[in-house]
């Protein structure tokens, strides 16, 4: 079965600093999703990547899917306290179009003012 590993598990950065979170899959990724979760709340959809080499940006967050489609990175530029939370990568965990998402264990981000 497919597994997603995120690194680092937690991150503390000073406001204004850049940071990167990685998500590595044990199998080829056919769709990679990034979500953000604040403690005790639901998941907020950030971005979806499907093609090798694809890169998407929203405000100060950029996500990439590498050419071999087994790793994705999420990069935050000039971090702000509002970026704090848990970032989860998710991928299709089924053998086909099952809709089943499996998730990495999450990366907890703290941004110090």
């Amino acid at each position, binding site marked *: 079965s497919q597994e997603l590993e995120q690194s680092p598990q937690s991150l503390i950065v000073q406001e204004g600093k850049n940071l990167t979170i990685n998500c590595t899959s044990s199998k080829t990724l*056919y*769709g990679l*999703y990034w*979500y953000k979760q604040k403690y*005790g*709340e*639901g*998941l*907020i*959809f950030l971005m*979806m990547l*499907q093609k090798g080499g694809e890169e998407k940006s929203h405000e100060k967050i950029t996500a990439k899917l590498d050419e071999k489609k087994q790793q994705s990175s999420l990069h935050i530029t000039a971090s702000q306290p509002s970026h704090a939370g848990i970032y*989860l990568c*998710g991928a*299709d*965990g089924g053998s086909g*179009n*099952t*809709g*089943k*998402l*499996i*998730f*990495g*264990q*999450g990366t907890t981000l703290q941004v110090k003012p």
Partner: protein
Amino acid sequence: DAMVIQNPRYQVTQFGKPVTLSCSQTLNHNVMYWYQQKSSQAPKLLFHYYDKDFNNEADTPDNFQSRRPNTSFCFLDIRSPGLGDAAMYLCATSRETDRAGAQYFGPGTRLLVL
């Protein structure tokens, strides 16, 4: 705004007392999912409905059931909650099950079992 709504946000129940969690959506999506998320863990899929077709995950305990009376609503029934069922329960929807679109999550219901 179109959204996924879960009620209640917090639910306290007693050991063995049946409980029902509710999810509704205004996105008119075909698929509705229920995930269980325990503390500091990733969400884990329990089951999903594609329209009226129910799809159970192999490792979902029989204690968990679901109903989808119409497109907008989906319910999670826990027949005899145990202490180990205390968790956040997340409802999500997607237009289809293929890889073309994302799943959109509700705010979750936190269940406490006494």
